[in-house]
């Protein structure tokens, strides 16, 4: 029962057709295993079996990307496998791109778990590491003996639907999804190890690469502020007293929209903060210290601005993920547009 059917993809070199001079051979399918398939057979034991191997020239694949993907995908489909394995490709660039392209297509188009392996600097790694599991290997075929058991183990977990651990535990290239696990040493000792390497000029690997944030072009300025409808949005957690929507004090899962109609000034009796990341006393005394309702209302009366929008929107920025904030803001922006808002004052704590 537990004998899963596997299709294996390799290039012309590992398929023992030939080297660079044979890199333009089109894809062909053979029954059973070929070349590195033997190592996988040993790693799988009786749990899975390679029933077919696809061999394809690296140049042919990359020069005919669409056709090649389609052709290989068709060959895989015919086999109705439970699992697909490509490579490992080590540092062979075109081979790596081919392995990752096919594995990604198998996963998304056929819905079959797929995995490949390659060296971290292989161009295929950066292109696909966030889409499929790519096991980290050495930079040459000498790394085969080490790579195959890791790939086989992860592949079996995938096909069985078992939980997948962090990249460091499972041996795949970091895929942008942060996952917790227990290291062998405590953090302070790991910091000391890393510093020792850094001081000695030896290579070390950061446990958390610096995040990158995208950019958006600035909107044009407001031409006539005395006609503009200005809305307030805040991540400082200002809510009507009692926090009616129960916005969380940290890691907020929601935001609230609240009316400002007839409100000239926020007071300790009307508004408070739900934010758990800063001392709440001052905001609770006077929430105008976080969102300037009093001033904007006065400016509206004085004709300095067109209007203070009837609704303000609020969430708690404390520990709230970028993905959640993004979702809130997109929804809020939709509402603001519908309310005819011209500009937004966003305050953060």
């Amino acid at each position, binding site marked *: 029962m537990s004998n899963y059917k596997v299709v294996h993809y390799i290039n012309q070199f590992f398929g023992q057709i030939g080297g660079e001079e044979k890199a333009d051979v089109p894809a062909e399918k053979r029954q059973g295993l070929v070349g590195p398939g033997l190592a996988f057979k040993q790693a799988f034991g009786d749990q899975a079996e390679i029933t077919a191997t696809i061999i394809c020239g690296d140049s042919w694949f990359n020069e005919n990307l669409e056709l090649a993907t389609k052709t290989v995908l068709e060959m895989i489909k015919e086999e109705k496998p439970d699992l697909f394995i490509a490579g490992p490709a080590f540092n062979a660039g075109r081979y790596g791109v081919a392995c990752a392209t096919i594995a990604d297509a198998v996963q998304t188009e056929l819905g079959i778990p797929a995995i490949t392996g390659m060296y971290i600097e292989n161009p295929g790694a950066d292109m696909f590491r966030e889409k499929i599991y790519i096991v980290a290997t050495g930079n040459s075929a000498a790394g085969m003996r080490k790579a195959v058991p890791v790939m086989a183990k992860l592949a079996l977990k995938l096909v069985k639907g078992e939980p997948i651990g962090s990249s460091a535990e499972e041996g795949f290239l970091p895929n942008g999804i*942060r996952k917790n696990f227990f290291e062998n040493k*405590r*953090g302070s000792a790991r910091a*000391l190890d890393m510093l020792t390497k*850094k001081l000695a000029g030896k290579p070390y690997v950061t446990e*958390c690469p610096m995040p990158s944030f995208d950019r958006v072009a600035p909107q044009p300025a407001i031409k006539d502020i005395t006609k503009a409808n200005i809305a307030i949005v805040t991540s400082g957690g200002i809510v009507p007293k009692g926090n009616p929507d129960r916005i969380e004090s940290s*890691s907020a899962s929601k935001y609230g929209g609240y009316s400002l109609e007839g409100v000239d000034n926020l007071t300790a009796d009307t508004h408070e903060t739900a934010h758990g990341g800063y001392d709440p006393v001052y905001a609770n005394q006077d929430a105008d210290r976080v969102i300037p309702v009093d001033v904007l209302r006065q400016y509206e009366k004085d004709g300095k601005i067109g209007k203070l929008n009837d609704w303000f929107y609020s969430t708690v920025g404390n520990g709230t993920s970028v993905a959640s904030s993004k979702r809130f803001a997109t929804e809020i922006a939709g509402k603001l547009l519908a309310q005819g808002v011209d500009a937004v004052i966003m305050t953060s704590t």
Partner: protein
Amino acid sequence: MKLELGYIDIKGIRFGDHNAVEDHVLVVNPEELLEPVLADPLIKTAHFEIANPGESIRITPVKDVIEPRVKVEGPGGIFPGVISKVHTVGSGKTHVLRGMAVVTAGPIVGFQEGIIDMTGVGAEYTPFSKLHNLVLVMEAVEGTGQHEYEKAARMAGLTTAVAIGELARDLTPDESVVYETPTIAEGYQEPLSNLPRVGYVMMLQSQGLLHDTYVYGVDAKRTISTLIGATELMDGAIISGNCVSACDKNTTYHHLNNPVIRDLLEAHGKTLNFVGVIITNENVYLADKIRSSDWTAKLAKFLSLDGAIVSQEGFGNPDTDLIMNCTKLENNGVKTVIITDEYAGADGKSQPLADADDLADAVVTAGNANEMIVLPPMERVIGTLNFVNKIAGGHDGSLREDGSIETELQAIMGSTNELGFNRLSAR
């Protein structure tokens, strides 16, 4: 400075009609020990409960965890400037009641007190599940402001810990370890002069009342970066008055047992020369952040450091202090490793830090605090479950009908500690 720590192993706690440490068991007479706590007019009720490793017990909301110690030789006393008189500590001899802690708990002070489970999956994430805990459960008089209540609870915990530490004054330690740090001049003599000069930059949470740290009794937000001896921390020179998220606040227990200091002292004279500790705050004003990180880098330069480890406390805007400290150290030629934790969302897909710089290329992470965990129901609750939905990391519906709790790791005491106290990490 030279400090000898004499460890007295505590293997159990029981209530009795007197206070003593007998045959590795702490005997507590609650009435006597509670007297000074209840003397504070702000504390309405207080009582003790005992929680041992492996018992089906949930303690929440927890405010601080404190290891009892007593100064038996040398100047000063434990928690100088707070409980003992101001006097430079960190030399002589100190006895430590190892394997136990005083835990303060009770109705909420801020949003951010946490959970300690003594068994089950949650216990794996908190170091305090391995201790015999004497839990001081307190309730404030109605109408007490958050700030006053925080202070009352803080003082009650420290007072109790010192009273218990006192019981170990005349005992013979099970193990003694001597910690010694050199002067600058000694660091330039053989054999230390051949080793890289390494410092420790310790960031202290100082975001305002309820998010504070005290150094010899001084509120850290009113300080500029300064030097402190590694052994001074072992005598309680730094204490927590901190209600930031339970997962990455440094409790007083952490300050007393700072793992970066321990590991650097362990390596001192072998692979490196541990030159000193720089403490620096994490204030709410941008000018303060700039000034404090400037001073950190300047002090590191005065000390001619080759390398430094920086530990953070908390998250969010302190990420800016962390990045400023790191980049300014690196720009001064100090090779730097930082210890932080992450808020990458429950799915792990979001940016893990609020601020970033390419110079921060050597990061140790204590894990993603947003990761979800389900804590099984416990037979006994010390404190109250009334606030589980409200504490940082919890959400409406966190507490389920059967008593189990679905929450972020954030709510578990010390789970993603940024001193590197634990083995938890993330990739």
